[in-house]
């Protein structure tokens, strides 16, 4: 039996490479840089604390236990919040100055109910505004829920430019990433949170993780976001839904 003549044995390829894994965690495990690691972790912890102690608790603190709205004095309480609403920046500044001492007060058992759901408090605000026939100025800030088309377009256009879509993503999988942002009045991002964060670390969700990271990079790259100059209350919290399927399908 004749075989094609081989030039020479082709088995001079190098031996199989041995791979040693360095432990990879959410935070670096650099064995030779423990100081930096501790420092970074400390800074992150501090940032975390600040973030988790923002607006809602502070507002609660201002309402002393006796001021917690009972059905009888509901109107009075709502008026108070309405005052806050007219000066949102003031609230924001106050929140930033929360001291360690004040934080303890935040967990006053009498205030727990108010912590349950901030949105319910907002409900009270809107109801009150409607009932009391708010002034034109107030209406400008409160009555118009959502961004106008031009405002939304400006913001979209900005983020479109910052978002580098990972090109390897499959177009036939549900890969929408929802990110909730808390914004400062100047459009910078105070906090960004992936709403389906648990999916990031699930096995087989590499593509979701990659997309989520690209979305976070886009937000960081873009800030300060092009938000409207007025109506901070409307857009101080935004949800961005990143969906690359349209682009990847071509």
């Amino acid at each position: 039996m004749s075989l094609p003549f081989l030039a020479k044995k082709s088995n001079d390829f190098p031996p199989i490479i041995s791979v040693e894994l360095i432990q990879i965690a959410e935070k670096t495990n650099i064995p030779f840089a423990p100081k930096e690691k501790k420092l970074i972790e400390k800074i992150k912890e501090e940032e975390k604390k600040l973030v988790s102690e923002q607006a809602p608790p502070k507002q609660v603190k201002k309402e002393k236990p006796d001021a917690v709205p009972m059905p009888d004095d509901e109107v009075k309480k709502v008026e108070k919040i309405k005052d806050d609403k007219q000066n949102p920046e003031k609230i924001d500044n106050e929140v930033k100055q929360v001291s360690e001492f004040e934080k303890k007060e935040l967990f006053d058992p009498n205030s727990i109910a108010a912590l349950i759901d901030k949105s319910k408090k907002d409900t009270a605000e809107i109801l009150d505004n409607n009932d009391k026939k708010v002034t034109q100025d107030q209406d400008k800030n409160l009555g118009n829920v959502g961004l106008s088309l031009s405002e939304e377009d400006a913001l979209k256009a900005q983020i479109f430019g910052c978002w580098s879509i990972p090109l390897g993503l499959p177009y036939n999988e549900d890969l929408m990433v929802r990110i909730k942002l808390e914004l400062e009045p100047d459009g910078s991002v105070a906090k960004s949170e992936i709403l389906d964060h648990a999916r990031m670390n699930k096995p087989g969700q590499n593509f979701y993780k990659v997309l989520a990271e690209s979305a976070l990079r886009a937000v960081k790259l873009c800030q300060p976001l092009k938000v409207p100059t007025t109506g901070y209350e409307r857009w101080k919290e935004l949800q961005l839904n990143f969906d690359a399927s349209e682009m990847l399908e071509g």
Partner: protein
Amino acid sequence: MKKYIKKISLILLFLILPFKAFALIEIDITRGNLDPLPVAVSPLSIDDNSKINFEKILNTENIGSEISTIVENNLRASGIFNPLNKDAFLQAPDIAHLKPRFEDWNLIKAQALITGKITYDEGKLRVEFRLWDVLAGKEILALAFTTAPNNWRRVGHIISDKVYERLTGEKGYFDTRIIYVAEEGPKTQRIKKLAIMDQDGFNNKFLTLGNELVLTPRFNPTSQMVTYLSYFKNLPRVYLLDIATGTQEVVGDFPGMTFAPRFSPDGKKIIMSFAKDGQSDIYVMDLENRIVERITNHPSIDTSPSFSPDEKYVTFNSDRSGHQQIYVMDSDGNNVKRISFGDGLYGTPVWSPRGDLIAFTKLHQGSFYIGVMRPDGSGERLLTENFYQEAPSWSPNGRILIFYRETKTDQEGDGFSAKLWSIDLTGYNERLIETETDASDPSWSSLLSN
């Protein structure tokens, strides 16, 4: 007691109150830029002692720079990344590897940073690298490899694969080889040899001397085994060649002509077509027991079969409708369905390793196209057009296609050439793959290291 009543009342109040708060504004981001991601590949740092040792062993001046150049070239060739100019780097490689100053890297618009360190470790090469997310300011990958020093090019490819996988979510394709037919001589008297090289064109080796005509080499998707056709007494025979050991064998003597052998995804079978009694049909051979099973039986020319990754289906081309078109059938030969309906002739269908697409060659109005369509025939996209090009082969991650392209000859019959090209699924990133000689019929290996 009064206190508790107050609390309960408060909770009830909040539960009863209707929801009419500011709705959270949702904005859909459905567009972004498809520009390559800016990446900084810092040269791998190396201490003086290691540098001297590697210079002696490898005759390479600075192996750290060389490896980072491999990574850089791989990432650039993918079309997905844009490695930034090293002249703009502000931080020294060794310091950057310890703790990058993210502001500096941010300043040059890098979104990811690769750093590394090389050491000489008792005759071995130890390479450590880290991948950093510059905007998030954190490390997202850290690995180390220890290997024989002359494996240094592979280390560069493996680093590229790991970075690619971490930043795209899919496996890379850099630590791979391409087998192809090397061609020399005038068009009418071509000498064809089997040749193999790294996917970036380096480490080229000829596997045959050119005494016999060789055709259609195809890699086994699970190992470094190759099947190919070679002519013996003017009849093509199917051979198996183990790249790792250099051993080869004839798969079997088949009656009539044999065409287009290709491995099944699990590497245990070969699917091919035989021409017999005036018709060409598709057969599958089990490599363990060498039993051959006929899959199609039609008085037409059925050829170029390719399994789906799950081995449930087979795609092939056939002229049973009067013109050459692409069909899909169950792997036992049932439920034959035509999937190509566009103008022109369709051939050489190859199922993507990801399963989502079938690549093909199309001939229409004198031009050849390489394109892709979904397995149901929808979403046909033509990626590239040329005078003559064919034989697409998928990268192991199903992202890139490699094929060969021939040029026209002039009136004297000169000017002919055949070269390997690659293109990614976007159709934008078309690249010539440099080879020592003319080249055709490429086939991409699976990843050498998983």
